[in-house]
Protein backbone atom coordinates (compact mmCIF):
# COMPACT_ATOMS: atom_id res chain seq x y z
CA UNK A 1 0.00 0.00 0.00
CA UNK A 2 2.83 2.33 0.93
CA UNK A 3 4.55 1.75 -2.44
CA UNK A 4 1.29 2.33 -4.31
CA UNK A 5 0.81 5.61 -2.48
CA UNK A 6 4.37 6.58 -3.40
CA UNK A 7 3.58 5.89 -7.07
CA UNK A 8 0.36 7.88 -6.78
CA UNK A 9 2.23 10.84 -5.25
CA UNK A 10 4.93 10.84 -7.93
CA UNK A 11 2.32 11.06 -10.69
CA UNK A 12 0.33 13.56 -8.66
CA UNK A 13 3.40 15.82 -8.67
CA UNK A 14 3.85 15.23 -12.40
CA UNK A 15 0.20 16.11 -13.04
CA UNK A 16 0.34 19.18 -10.83
CA UNK A 17 3.53 20.72 -12.23
CA UNK A 18 3.48 19.89 -15.93
CA UNK A 19 2.39 22.95 -17.84
CA UNK A 20 1.77 22.56 -21.56
CA UNK A 21 0.67 19.46 -23.37
CA UNK A 22 2.34 16.41 -24.88
CA UNK A 23 6.03 16.03 -24.23
CA UNK A 24 6.14 18.77 -21.57
CA UNK A 25 5.79 16.01 -18.97
CA UNK A 26 8.99 14.29 -20.13
CA UNK A 27 11.50 16.22 -17.95
CA UNK A 28 9.53 15.71 -14.75
CA UNK A 29 8.86 11.99 -15.33
CA UNK A 30 12.49 11.43 -16.29
CA UNK A 31 13.70 13.19 -13.12
CA UNK A 32 11.26 11.52 -10.72
CA UNK A 33 10.92 8.01 -12.19
CA UNK A 34 14.37 7.44 -13.76
CA UNK A 35 16.85 9.60 -11.85
CA UNK A 36 15.38 9.63 -8.32
CA UNK A 37 13.24 6.53 -7.79
CA UNK A 38 15.09 4.43 -10.39
CA UNK A 39 11.83 2.73 -11.27
CA UNK A 40 12.81 2.71 -14.94
CA UNK A 41 15.98 3.23 -16.99
CA UNK A 42 16.27 6.13 -19.43
CA UNK A 43 16.28 3.67 -22.34
CA UNK A 44 13.14 1.92 -21.13
CA UNK A 45 11.49 5.30 -20.57
CA UNK A 46 12.07 6.16 -24.24
CA UNK A 47 10.53 2.82 -25.27
CA UNK A 48 7.51 3.58 -23.07
CA UNK A 49 7.10 7.03 -24.65
CA UNK A 50 7.19 5.42 -28.10
CA UNK A 51 4.44 2.98 -27.10
CA UNK A 52 2.40 5.74 -25.42
CA UNK A 53 2.70 7.91 -28.52
CA UNK A 54 1.60 5.06 -30.79
CA UNK A 55 -1.65 4.47 -28.89
CA UNK A 56 -4.70 6.72 -28.98
CA UNK A 57 -5.50 9.04 -26.09
CA UNK A 58 -3.59 11.24 -23.69
CA UNK A 59 0.21 10.88 -23.77
CA UNK A 60 0.73 11.52 -20.04
CA UNK A 61 -2.05 9.09 -19.08
CA UNK A 62 -0.71 6.39 -21.40
CA UNK A 63 2.79 6.79 -19.94
CA UNK A 64 1.39 6.64 -16.39
CA UNK A 65 -0.60 3.51 -17.21
CA UNK A 66 2.35 1.64 -18.75
CA UNK A 67 4.74 2.57 -15.91
CA UNK A 68 2.07 1.79 -13.31
CA UNK A 69 1.54 -1.63 -14.86
CA UNK A 70 5.26 -2.32 -14.89
CA UNK A 71 5.64 -1.51 -11.18
CA UNK A 72 2.54 -2.96 -9.53
CA UNK A 73 0.22 -4.43 -12.16
CA UNK A 74 -3.41 -3.28 -12.29
CA UNK A 75 -3.32 -1.50 -8.87
CA UNK A 76 -0.25 0.36 -10.19
CA UNK A 77 -2.19 1.45 -13.29
CA UNK A 78 -4.98 2.86 -11.10
CA UNK A 79 -2.57 4.63 -8.72
CA UNK A 80 -0.46 6.20 -11.48
CA UNK A 81 -3.35 7.27 -13.73
CA UNK A 82 -5.36 8.64 -10.79
CA UNK A 83 -2.28 10.55 -9.63
CA UNK A 84 -1.66 12.00 -13.10
CA UNK A 85 -5.27 13.09 -13.60
CA UNK A 86 -6.43 14.20 -10.14
CA UNK A 87 -4.53 17.55 -9.98
CA UNK A 88 -5.97 18.55 -13.38
CA UNK A 89 -9.44 17.53 -12.33
CA UNK A 90 -9.33 19.47 -9.06
CA UNK A 91 -7.68 22.60 -10.48
CA UNK A 92 -10.07 22.78 -13.44
CA UNK A 93 -13.08 22.21 -11.20
CA UNK A 94 -12.04 25.07 -8.89
CA UNK A 95 -11.49 27.34 -11.91
CA UNK A 96 -14.77 26.31 -13.55
CA UNK A 97 -16.74 26.93 -10.36
CA UNK A 98 -15.04 30.08 -9.06
CA UNK A 99 -12.73 31.71 -11.58
CA UNK A 100 -14.13 31.53 -15.09
CA UNK A 101 -12.28 34.77 -15.73
CA UNK A 102 -8.97 32.98 -14.95
CA UNK A 103 -7.31 33.74 -18.30
CA UNK A 104 -8.17 37.38 -18.04
CA UNK A 105 -6.24 37.94 -14.80
CA UNK A 106 -3.06 39.85 -15.54
CA UNK A 107 -1.03 37.86 -12.97
CA UNK A 108 -1.88 34.54 -14.69
CA UNK A 109 -0.50 35.89 -17.93
CA UNK A 110 2.72 36.99 -16.19
CA UNK A 111 3.26 33.61 -14.49
CA UNK A 112 2.66 31.88 -17.79
CA UNK A 113 5.06 34.11 -19.71
CA UNK A 114 7.71 33.20 -17.15
CA UNK A 115 7.03 29.46 -17.14
CA UNK A 116 6.95 28.91 -20.91
CA UNK A 117 10.66 29.69 -21.51
CA UNK A 118 11.52 27.43 -18.55
CA UNK A 119 9.54 24.58 -20.09
CA UNK A 120 11.69 24.98 -23.22
CA UNK A 121 14.87 24.79 -21.07
CA UNK A 122 13.59 21.78 -19.12
CA UNK A 123 12.78 19.89 -22.29
CA UNK A 124 16.07 20.79 -23.98
CA UNK A 125 17.89 19.57 -20.86
CA UNK A 126 15.91 16.31 -20.81
CA UNK A 127 16.66 15.73 -24.50
CA UNK A 128 20.40 16.16 -23.84
CA UNK A 129 20.29 13.78 -20.87
CA UNK A 130 18.34 11.12 -22.77
CA UNK A 131 20.51 11.62 -25.86
CA UNK A 132 23.68 11.02 -23.84
CA UNK A 133 22.18 7.86 -22.39
CA UNK A 134 21.24 6.42 -25.76
CA UNK A 135 24.68 7.31 -27.09
CA UNK A 136 26.10 9.11 -30.09
CA UNK A 137 26.70 6.34 -32.63
CA UNK A 138 26.63 6.61 -36.42
CA UNK A 139 23.39 4.59 -36.40
CA UNK A 140 21.68 6.89 -33.88
CA UNK A 141 22.79 10.05 -35.70
CA UNK A 142 21.59 8.65 -39.04
CA UNK A 143 18.15 7.85 -37.58
CA UNK A 144 18.07 11.25 -35.88
CA UNK A 145 18.80 13.10 -39.12
CA UNK A 146 16.24 11.05 -41.03
CA UNK A 147 13.57 11.77 -38.39
CA UNK A 148 14.42 15.48 -38.42
CA UNK A 149 13.98 15.49 -42.21
CA UNK A 150 10.66 13.63 -41.96
CA UNK A 151 9.46 16.12 -39.33
CA UNK A 152 10.24 19.01 -41.67
CA UNK A 153 7.92 17.35 -44.18
CA UNK A 154 5.32 16.98 -41.39
CA UNK A 155 5.24 13.19 -41.46
CA UNK A 156 3.02 11.88 -38.64
CA UNK A 157 4.92 10.87 -35.45
CA UNK A 158 3.39 7.38 -35.41
CA UNK A 159 4.63 6.78 -38.95
CA UNK A 160 8.07 8.01 -37.87
CA UNK A 161 8.11 5.58 -34.92
CA UNK A 162 7.05 2.65 -37.11
CA UNK A 163 9.61 3.50 -39.78
CA UNK A 164 12.50 3.88 -37.34
CA UNK A 165 11.51 0.57 -35.72
CA UNK A 166 11.65 -1.16 -39.10
CA UNK A 167 15.08 0.39 -39.73
CA UNK A 168 16.19 -0.89 -36.32
CA UNK A 169 15.15 -4.44 -37.21
CA UNK A 170 16.65 -4.23 -40.72
CA UNK A 171 19.94 -2.95 -39.30
CA UNK A 172 20.02 -5.72 -36.70
CA UNK A 173 19.61 -8.48 -39.27
CA UNK A 174 21.85 -6.97 -41.93
CA UNK A 175 24.39 -5.58 -39.51
CA UNK A 176 24.24 -8.74 -37.39
CA UNK A 177 24.91 -10.92 -40.40
CA UNK A 178 27.82 -8.85 -41.70
CA UNK A 179 29.30 -8.76 -38.19
CA UNK A 180 29.03 -12.53 -37.99
CA UNK A 181 30.86 -12.75 -41.32
CA UNK A 182 33.52 -10.42 -40.06
CA UNK A 183 33.94 -12.57 -36.96
CA UNK A 184 34.50 -15.62 -39.10
Amino acid at each position, binding site marked *: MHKLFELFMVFFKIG*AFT*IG*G*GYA*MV*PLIQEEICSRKKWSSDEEFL*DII*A*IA*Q*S*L*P*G*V*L*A*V*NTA*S*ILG*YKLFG*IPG*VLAAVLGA*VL*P*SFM*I*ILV*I*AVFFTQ*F*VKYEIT*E*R*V*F*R*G*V*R*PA*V*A*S*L*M*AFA*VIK*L*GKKVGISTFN*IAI*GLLVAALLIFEVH*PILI*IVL*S*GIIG*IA*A*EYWGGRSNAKADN
Partner: protein
Amino acid sequence: MLKLIIDVFFTFLRIGAFTFGGGYAMIPFIQTEIIDIHKWLTAEEFIDIIAIAEMTPGPIAVNSSTFVGYKIAGFWGSLAGTVGVILVCTILSALAGKFFFKFKDNTLLKALFKGIRPAVIVLIGSSVFSIGKVALLDIKSIGICIVIFAALLKFKLHPILAVVLSGVMGVILFA
Protein backbone atom coordinates in the same frame (compact mmCIF):
# COMPACT_ATOMS: atom_id res chain seq x y z
CA MET B 1 -29.86 14.86 -16.48
CA LEU B 2 -28.64 11.27 -16.24
CA LYS B 3 -29.08 10.89 -19.97
CA LEU B 4 -26.99 14.03 -20.52
CA ILE B 5 -24.22 12.73 -18.24
CA ILE B 6 -24.17 9.38 -20.07
CA ASP B 7 -24.06 11.29 -23.36
CA VAL B 8 -21.08 13.33 -22.15
CA PHE B 9 -19.33 10.14 -21.04
CA PHE B 10 -19.71 8.38 -24.39
CA THR B 11 -18.80 11.49 -26.37
CA PHE B 12 -15.50 11.82 -24.48
CA LEU B 13 -14.97 8.07 -24.64
CA ARG B 14 -15.06 8.38 -28.44
CA ILE B 15 -12.74 11.39 -28.36
CA GLY B 16 -10.23 9.56 -26.13
CA ALA B 17 -10.39 6.34 -28.09
CA PHE B 18 -9.87 7.74 -31.56
CA THR B 19 -7.37 10.59 -31.32
CA PHE B 20 -3.68 9.92 -31.56
CA GLY B 21 -1.06 12.34 -30.29
CA GLY B 22 -2.76 13.84 -27.24
CA GLY B 23 -4.03 17.33 -26.42
CA TYR B 24 -3.59 19.43 -29.53
CA ALA B 25 -4.68 16.62 -31.83
CA MET B 26 -7.83 16.28 -29.73
CA ILE B 27 -8.96 19.90 -29.86
CA PRO B 28 -10.48 19.78 -33.39
CA PHE B 29 -12.24 16.50 -32.51
CA ILE B 30 -13.69 17.95 -29.28
CA GLN B 31 -14.76 21.01 -31.25
CA THR B 32 -16.67 18.95 -33.82
CA GLU B 33 -18.39 16.81 -31.19
CA ILE B 34 -19.21 19.53 -28.65
CA ILE B 35 -19.94 22.57 -30.80
CA ASP B 36 -21.03 21.27 -34.21
CA ILE B 37 -22.80 18.00 -33.39
CA HIS B 38 -24.16 18.38 -29.85
CA LYS B 39 -24.22 22.21 -29.70
CA TRP B 40 -23.37 22.00 -26.00
CA LEU B 41 -21.15 25.11 -26.10
CA THR B 42 -20.63 28.14 -28.33
CA ALA B 43 -17.34 28.62 -30.21
CA GLU B 44 -16.41 31.53 -27.90
CA GLU B 45 -16.94 29.48 -24.75
CA PHE B 46 -14.86 26.70 -26.27
CA ILE B 47 -11.94 29.02 -27.11
CA ASP B 48 -11.85 30.32 -23.52
CA ILE B 49 -11.86 26.76 -22.19
CA ILE B 50 -8.95 25.73 -24.42
CA ALA B 51 -6.97 28.79 -23.28
CA ILE B 52 -7.52 27.78 -19.64
CA ALA B 53 -6.70 24.13 -20.40
CA GLU B 54 -3.37 25.21 -21.88
CA MET B 55 -2.47 27.50 -18.99
CA THR B 56 -3.29 25.15 -16.14
CA PRO B 57 -1.08 22.22 -15.12
CA GLY B 58 -1.78 18.74 -16.43
CA PRO B 59 -2.59 17.16 -19.77
CA ILE B 60 -4.54 19.52 -22.06
CA ALA B 61 -6.96 16.77 -23.10
CA VAL B 62 -7.85 16.00 -19.49
CA ASN B 63 -8.16 19.68 -18.58
CA SER B 64 -10.46 20.45 -21.47
CA SER B 65 -12.66 17.39 -20.96
CA THR B 66 -13.07 18.20 -17.26
CA PHE B 67 -13.97 21.79 -18.08
CA VAL B 68 -16.30 21.03 -20.99
CA GLY B 69 -17.98 18.29 -18.91
CA TYR B 70 -18.56 20.75 -16.08
CA LYS B 71 -20.03 23.37 -18.42
CA ILE B 72 -22.46 20.84 -19.86
CA ALA B 73 -23.61 18.97 -16.78
CA GLY B 74 -21.92 20.27 -13.61
CA PHE B 75 -19.76 18.11 -11.34
CA TRP B 76 -21.02 14.76 -12.66
CA GLY B 77 -20.50 16.01 -16.18
CA SER B 78 -16.86 16.84 -15.42
CA LEU B 79 -16.36 13.40 -13.90
CA ALA B 80 -18.02 11.71 -16.89
CA GLY B 81 -15.90 13.74 -19.34
CA THR B 82 -12.63 13.03 -17.56
CA VAL B 83 -13.21 9.30 -17.00
CA GLY B 84 -14.51 9.00 -20.55
CA VAL B 85 -11.45 10.57 -22.15
CA ILE B 86 -8.91 8.47 -20.20
CA LEU B 87 -10.68 5.11 -19.96
CA VAL B 88 -9.86 3.51 -23.31
CA CYS B 89 -6.27 4.74 -23.46
CA THR B 90 -5.57 3.63 -19.87
CA ILE B 91 -6.73 0.08 -20.65
CA LEU B 92 -4.97 -0.07 -24.04
CA SER B 93 -1.73 1.24 -22.50
CA ALA B 94 -1.81 -1.26 -19.65
CA LEU B 95 -2.30 -4.07 -22.17
CA ALA B 96 0.49 -2.74 -24.37
CA GLY B 97 2.70 -2.46 -21.26
CA LYS B 98 1.92 -6.03 -20.29
CA PHE B 99 2.94 -7.22 -23.75
CA PHE B 100 6.06 -5.02 -23.82
CA PHE B 101 7.43 -6.08 -20.43
CA LYS B 102 6.80 -9.72 -21.25
CA PHE B 103 8.65 -9.69 -24.56
CA LYS B 104 11.16 -6.91 -24.13
CA ASP B 105 14.12 -9.32 -24.11
CA ASN B 106 13.01 -10.71 -27.46
CA THR B 107 15.70 -10.00 -30.10
CA LEU B 108 13.23 -8.62 -32.62
CA LEU B 109 11.64 -6.23 -30.12
CA LYS B 110 15.08 -5.13 -28.92
CA ALA B 111 16.13 -4.31 -32.48
CA LEU B 112 12.84 -2.48 -33.05
CA PHE B 113 13.38 -0.21 -30.05
CA LYS B 114 17.02 0.30 -30.91
CA GLY B 115 15.77 2.08 -34.01
CA ILE B 116 12.94 3.85 -32.20
CA ARG B 117 14.90 5.36 -29.28
CA PRO B 118 16.88 7.96 -31.28
CA ALA B 119 13.67 8.78 -33.19
CA VAL B 120 11.80 9.51 -29.95
CA ILE B 121 14.62 11.78 -28.78
CA VAL B 122 14.34 13.80 -32.00
CA LEU B 123 10.54 13.90 -31.66
CA ILE B 124 10.85 15.32 -28.14
CA GLY B 125 13.62 17.62 -29.37
CA SER B 126 11.36 18.97 -32.11
CA SER B 127 8.79 20.03 -29.53
CA VAL B 128 11.53 22.11 -27.85
CA PHE B 129 11.50 24.16 -31.06
CA SER B 130 7.73 24.50 -31.18
CA ILE B 131 7.62 25.62 -27.54
CA GLY B 132 10.61 27.90 -28.11
CA LYS B 133 8.80 29.63 -30.95
CA VAL B 134 5.91 30.72 -28.72
CA ALA B 135 7.93 31.09 -25.50
CA LEU B 136 11.00 33.06 -26.52
CA LEU B 137 9.58 36.34 -27.71
CA ASP B 138 11.79 38.98 -26.11
CA ILE B 139 15.02 39.53 -24.13
CA LYS B 140 13.28 38.80 -20.80
CA SER B 141 11.92 35.42 -21.85
CA ILE B 142 15.25 34.45 -23.45
CA GLY B 143 16.90 35.49 -20.17
CA ILE B 144 14.59 33.23 -18.14
CA CYS B 145 15.31 30.37 -20.54
CA ILE B 146 19.09 30.79 -20.16
CA VAL B 147 19.00 31.23 -16.36
CA ILE B 148 16.87 28.10 -15.88
CA PHE B 149 19.00 26.08 -18.29
CA ALA B 150 22.18 27.15 -16.46
CA ALA B 151 20.60 26.27 -13.10
CA LEU B 152 19.61 22.82 -14.42
CA LEU B 153 23.13 22.22 -15.69
CA LYS B 154 24.98 23.61 -12.67
CA PHE B 155 22.77 22.84 -9.65
CA LYS B 156 20.63 19.95 -11.00
CA LEU B 157 17.59 22.09 -10.23
CA HIS B 158 14.46 19.96 -9.77
CA PRO B 159 11.88 20.49 -12.60
CA ILE B 160 9.17 21.50 -10.08
CA LEU B 161 11.47 24.13 -8.60
CA ALA B 162 12.28 25.32 -12.13
CA VAL B 163 8.56 25.81 -12.87
CA VAL B 164 7.93 27.66 -9.59
CA LEU B 165 11.04 29.80 -9.96
CA SER B 166 10.27 30.76 -13.56
CA GLY B 167 6.68 31.64 -12.60
CA VAL B 168 8.00 34.01 -9.92
CA MET B 169 10.47 35.50 -12.42
CA GLY B 170 7.58 36.02 -14.83
CA VAL B 171 5.53 37.89 -12.23
CA ILE B 172 8.49 40.16 -11.41
CA LEU B 173 9.87 40.70 -14.92
CA PHE B 174 6.61 41.19 -16.80
CA ALA B 175 5.12 43.65 -14.30
